[in-house]
C-alpha cells in the first residue's frame, strides 16, 4: 500500500495574514538592501513512518528551496524521495484455514513454465498481507507566485511524480484579491491532474474472479478541481480562513492490488474477486481554520467536513498549540480527531449466494472508522535564522466493522486497528 502525495499547498491564503508586502520570513537580520534580505530559504526534512504488525514502513527525505526575487516574487521547488517497504493488506479477510495468494508482480497464479509466480501463505486467523511490497517514488513540485498591483497575487505551478507502478502530472493556477485594508482576502484556484496506473504484473480486470488472474495493460485517470476561499482578519490576534473545495475524478479509480473475499453462508472462503470501483468520483469539502495568538502562544484550530459521491462523509478536527519556551525553543502539542463513514460499495466480504454487486471493495481505507493522532513537536532556533525541530506523532485507526456473526468467522478480527508512528526531523535555514 503506497503513500502518495497530493498537490502542494496553495499559498494564497497567507496573503491576508500580514502587512502589505510582508515576506514569509519576518525574522530581522541586517543585509544589503538591494535584494530581499534573506532571499533563499532551504528546508530539509526526513520522515520516518512505521505501522504496526509488520505493515508499511517508509523513509522519506524532502528538500525544499524557496527564493524571493524581491517584491514578493517567489519561486518554490520541492523534491521528495520515498522508499516504502513492509506488508500491505490485500483486502481479503482472515480465515480459519491458511490462505495462499500471488504477489501482484506474478504473471500467473499457479506455477507455469515461462511465468513468474511468487506466492505467499497466510496462517489461519492472520490478516492477509503481501509481504513483498517495496516501492521507490520520486516527486517534484515547482510553484511561482507574484503580486499583481498592490492587492492581488497570482500563483501557478506543477507537480510530477513517478514510481514503478504509477506516474502523475498536475498543474494548478490560483488568484487572490485583498480588500478591506487587507483584512479580507478572496482566493480561487483550479487544478488538473493526469495519472497513469500500470500495476506490477498488470492491472487486473475489475470485479473479475481472482483465480482467473486476468490482467490488462495500463490505465489512466484524471482529476479536475477547484477551490474558493475567504480569509478574514477577525481581531488583532485572530485570523480565520474558510475554503470550499470541489473535485471530479474519472477513469481507472480502482485499486489494482485489492481483492475481496467471497464466503459461503458459514463464512468459509470459496474464492476471491478483484475489487471494482465506479469510474467517476466527485468530492467536496469545507475547511475552516483559525489561528489565535494567546500571548506568545499560538492556537491553530481547524474543522473540515467532507463528502463524496461514493457515499463517504468525513469530519476532521485538528488542534495545535505552539508554546514559546523562550531562548528560541518551542513546544507544540498536536491532536487530531477524524471520522469517516463507509463507501456505499464497501463490504468486509462478499457472499457467494445472491447476485454479485456491480461495485465492491474491501479496502480498509473506504471503511467506516475513527482515527486519532497525538503528537508533540519540539523546535530550537539555530544560526542563520534557522530552526531545527523534531516531531513525534502516534496515529491510530479504529474501524467500526471488525467482526461478523458468521460461524466460521467467530473470534476473528476482520479489520484490525491500525497504529502508526511518525517521526520527522526538520531543518530550516535562510541565506
Amino acid at each position, binding site marked *: 500500500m503506497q503513500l502518495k502525495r497530493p498537490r502542494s499547498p496553495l499559498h494564497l491564503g497567507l496573503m491576508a495574514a500580514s*502587512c*502589505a*508586502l510582508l515576506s514569509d520570513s519576518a525574522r530581522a537580520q*541586517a543585509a544589503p538592501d538591494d535584494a*530581499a534580505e534573506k532571499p533563499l530559504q532551504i528546508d530539509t526534512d526526513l520522515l520516518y513512518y512505521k505501522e504496526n504488525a509488520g505493515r508499511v514502513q517508509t523513509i522519506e527525505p524532502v528538500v525544499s528551496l524557496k527564493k524571493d526575487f524581491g*517584491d514578493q516574487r517567489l519561486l518554490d521547488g520541492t523534491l521528495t524521495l520515498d522508499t516504502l517497504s513492509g506488508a500491505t493488506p490485500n483486502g481479503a479477510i482472515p480465515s480459519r484455514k491458511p490462505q495462499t495468494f500471488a504477489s501482484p508482480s506474478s504473471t500467473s497464479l499457479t506455477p507455469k513454465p515461462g511465468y513468474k509466480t511468487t506466492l505467499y501463505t497466510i496462517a489461519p486467523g492472520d490478516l492477509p498481507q503481501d509481504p513483498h511490497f517495496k516501492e521507490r517514488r520520486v516527486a517534484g513540485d515547482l510553484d511561482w507566485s507574484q503580486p499583481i498591483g498592490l492587492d492581488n497575487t497570482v500563483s501557478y505551478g506543477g507537480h510530477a511524480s513517478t514510481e514503478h507502478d504509477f506516474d502523475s502530472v498536475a498543474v494548478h493556477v490560483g488568484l487572490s484579491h485583498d480588500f478591506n485594508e487587507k483584512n479580507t482576502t478572496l482566493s480561487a484556484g483550479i487544478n488538473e491532474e493526469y495519472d497513469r496506473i500500470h500495476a506490477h504484473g498488470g492491472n487486473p480486470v475489475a470485479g473479475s474472479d481472482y483465480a482467473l488472474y486476468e490482467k490488462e495493460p495500463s490505465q489512466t485517470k484524471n482529476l479536475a478541481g477547484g477551490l474558493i476561499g475567504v480569509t478574514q482578519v*477577525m*481581531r488583532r490576534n485572530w485570523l480565520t480562513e474558510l475554503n470550499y473545495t470541489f473535485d471530479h475524478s474519472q477513469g481507472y479509480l480502482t485499486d489494482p492490488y485489492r481483492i475481496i473475499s467471497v464466503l459461503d453462508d458459514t463464512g468459509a472462503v470459496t474464492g476471491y474477486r478483484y475489487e471494482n470501483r465506479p469510474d467517476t468520483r466527485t468530492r467536496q469539502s469545507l475547511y475552516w481554520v483559525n489561528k489565535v495568538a494567546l500571548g506568545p502562544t499560538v492556537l491553530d484550530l481547524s*474543522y473540515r467536513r467532507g463528502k463524496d459521491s461514493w457515499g463517504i462523509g468525513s469530519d476532521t478536527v485538528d488542534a495545535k498549540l505552539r508554546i514559546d519556551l523562550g531562548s528560541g525553543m518551542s513546544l507544540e502539542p498536536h491532536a487530531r480527531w477524524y471520522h469517516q463513514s463507509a463507501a456505499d460499495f464497501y463490504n468486509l466480504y462478499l457472499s457467494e449466494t445472491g447476485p454479485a454487486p456491480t461495485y465492491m471493495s474491501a479496502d480498509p481505507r473506504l471503511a467506516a472508522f475513527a482515527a486519532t493522532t497525538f503528537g508533540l513537536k519540539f523546535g530550537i532556533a539555530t544560526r542563520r535564522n534557522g530552526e531545527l525541530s523534531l516531531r513525534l506523532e502516534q496515529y491510530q485507526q479504529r474501524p467500526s466493522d471488525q467482526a461478523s456473526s458468521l460461524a466460521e468467522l467467530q473470534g476473528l478480527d476482520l479489520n484490525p486497528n491500525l497504529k502508526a508512528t511518525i517521526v520527522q526531523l526538520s531543518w530550516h535555514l535562510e541565506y
Partner: protein
Amino acid sequence: MRRRAGAGRRHAFTALLAAVLLLVAISPPAPAASGAELLDLAAFKGQVVYLDFWASWCAPCRQSFPWMNRLQGELGRDGLVVIAVNVDRERADADRFLHEHPAQFRIVYDPDGLLPEKFGVRGMPTSFLIDRSGHVQARHEGFLVRDRDALTQQVRALVLAH
C-alpha cells in the same frame, strides 16, 4: 441513521459558528483621533518632509531604512527632513529594529496609532511627500524595490525645485 447523525453535527457546528460571530460583531469603540502633540508639521514649513510610517514587524521597512538614510544624507542640506513614525505597540520591538537598522533621521513614537489614523494610512509601510508649504504632494503605499529609483527622483525633484 447516518444522515441524521450528519445533520446533528452540522447543526451543532452552525450553532457554534453563530455564537462565535455574535461575539465578534461587538467591536470595541475607536480611540479619539489626535496626534498633534506627537508631531506638528507646521514646525517644518519651508522644508520638504518625507513622512514614513514603519513598524519593526514590517519586512519592507528593512529595505526602506538604508534608502531613507541615503536620502536624508544627500538632500538634508537642501531642506529635506525625513520623519519616520513608529507604530509598534512595544517600544522594545522598535528599539531592536533600530539597533539592526540604524536611522540617521528623526523618529517619532506613536504606539497608540494616532498619527496613522489622522493621515488615513491604509497599508504598511506608507509614506507621504509633503512640500514646503505643508501640503501632501504624494502618497506611497508599500515599499517596492523596483519603485525605489522613481521615488528617489520624485523626492529629489521636489526638494531641488526652485
